[in-house]
């Protein structure tokens, strides 16, 4: 589970988003969509990142990284030939087992894990709708990749200079309202993004009787289950159970997540 990965490529997507391609056959072999790796920086705790993409044949994985602080800034300095220590892959990812049609809904850096999932859906020939939200055209990324994979692509931007104006949830709402009854029962929605967005997405999905899965970003100590630093409250029937985001998650059935318990997480 501990690997020394070599940086193969560093590609900048926007002013504060970049992609690292890493040589790491062991993780490339195993990682499922929605699983994540723990990356070492000069800070004390590792940083969790979803495996955004992988190439089993080449033995490479790609991480999409949003620069938000010390650790991600340091990672943005990595260049081909540098090495990185990784733990993983960890967590319970997305499952396409029950899906006949797929909607992915992503906001900001929540878009990264969805690429891996979208590719999987494509491989399984599942009809795919991608609904992605950005701040503006300038800050958008991966839209072309999703375009190639999706039957339907709905973009939105808060600034209004790309696609629909407003939050990603508006795109979703419009889409869901157009959806016919029989379709919705075969459709599963997968989402990742800020907690507030996920809460809205889940409630829209519920309103339209669509099953949803969300990937949560909770601050983590270990990432592999020993510290209980990453609690997520989920409904199990009538009771609430507290489970670990890093092992039982990060992907949870949307309806079961007690979002109120997560105020304070981003």
């Amino acid at each position, binding site marked *: *589970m*501990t690997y020394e990965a070599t940086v193969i490529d560093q590609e900048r997507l926007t002013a504060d988003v970049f992609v690292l391609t890493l040589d790491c056959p062991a993780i490339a072999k195993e990682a499922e969509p929605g699983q994540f790796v*723990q990356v*070492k920086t000069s*800070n*004390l*705790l*590792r940083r969790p990142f979803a495996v955004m993409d992988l190439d089993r044949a080449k033995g490479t994985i790609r991480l999409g990284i949003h620069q938000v602080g010390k650790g991600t800034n340091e990672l943005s300095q990595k260049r081909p030939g540098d090495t990185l220590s990784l*733990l993983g892959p960890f967590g319970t990812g997305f499952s396409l087992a029950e899906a006949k049609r797929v909607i992915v809904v992503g906001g900001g850096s929540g878009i990264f894990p969805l690429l891996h999932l979208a590719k999987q859906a494509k491989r399984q020939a599942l009809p795919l709708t991608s609904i992605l939200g950005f701040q503006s055209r300038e800050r958008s990324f991966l839209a072309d990749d999703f375009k190639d994979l999706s039957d339907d692509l709905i973009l939105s931007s808060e600034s209004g200079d790309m696609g629909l104006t407003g939050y990603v949830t508006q795109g979703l709402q419009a889409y869901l309202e157009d959806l016919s009854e029989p379709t919705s029962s075969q459709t599963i929605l997968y989402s990742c993004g800020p907690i507030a967005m996920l809460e809205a997405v889940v409630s829209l999905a519920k309103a339209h009787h669509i099953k949803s899965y969300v990937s949560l970003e*909770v*601050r*983590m*100590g*270990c990432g*592999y*289950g*020993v*510290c*209980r*630093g*990453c*609690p*997520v409250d989920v409904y199990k029937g009538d009771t609430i159970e*507290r489970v670990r*985001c890093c*092992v039982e998650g990060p992907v949870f059935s949307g309806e079961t997540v007690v979002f109120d*318990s*997560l*105020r*304070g*997480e981003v």
Partner: protein
Amino acid sequence: MSQLNVMIHHTTFRNPILGASGTVGFGRELSRLFDVSTIGGLVSKAVTPQPRRGNFAPRIAETAQGMLNAVGLENPGLEQFKREVLADFSELNCRRIVNLAAGSIEEYVDLARELREADIDGLELNLSCPNVKDGLSFGSDPKQIEGLMSRVRRVSDKPVWVKLTPNVTSITDCAKAAEAGGADGISLINTLLGMAIDIRSRRPILKNNTGGLSGPAIKPIALRMVHEVYQAVSIPVIGLGGIRCAEDVIEFMLAGASLVQVGTLILSDPATFFELPRELDKLADRLGVTQITQLIGQLKTW
């Protein structure tokens, strides 16, 4: 090859390196990934009388060479621990210590009594949790520590370590009280109470507002306390706080620790933790130390 084994209160540890409470769970995840027979032992997550859900997220905040945690003693509680966890924990191929936390002396005594027959190598009483009854921390009042320890002593023949909080004026008073109460060892230090703030939301990062500081940042404080306590008591000291490498282990042993525990390191670098005994062996060799126990308390103060 140096001799790494350490014997205290008739228990032999194959080496002095244990995993600290709260950072190894109940051993399940680690024993699946690593060979626990390379380390001296594991100290379980705290077990409390009743199940505890702990605090809401966020429970973790990073600081300069440290971290704050406010897990809030999440654990399944004694009954479920005995029913569903203890058997696996007992089977670990290393020394197994169960960490106990409670809100009153009676509860600690109950916990110890209930584990009297358990197949484990000892108990560690975590005295850092705030006593809700009278607003005082058990861990900061020597009289309570002695009373508590002597009551536990009466119900259990297992080795009992008392784990002290560093948030006190005199750590030696607390340690002496534990010894007077019949403790077999003193574990120190637990975490220092701290806070981290997000200036944008103007909120503490931790939902619990405050949390316990661990990691390399606290090592100098831990070393000082181990040194002080080693001189004040004659029972073994188990040292911890910020250990990351074999040099750190030796520093703690020179200061007076018979055994050490490793906490925060396990979260970020579990493989390094499991390699520590080997690194310690190599370093001891380089230093010409044939028996690791020769280091204990050998600090020469100026």
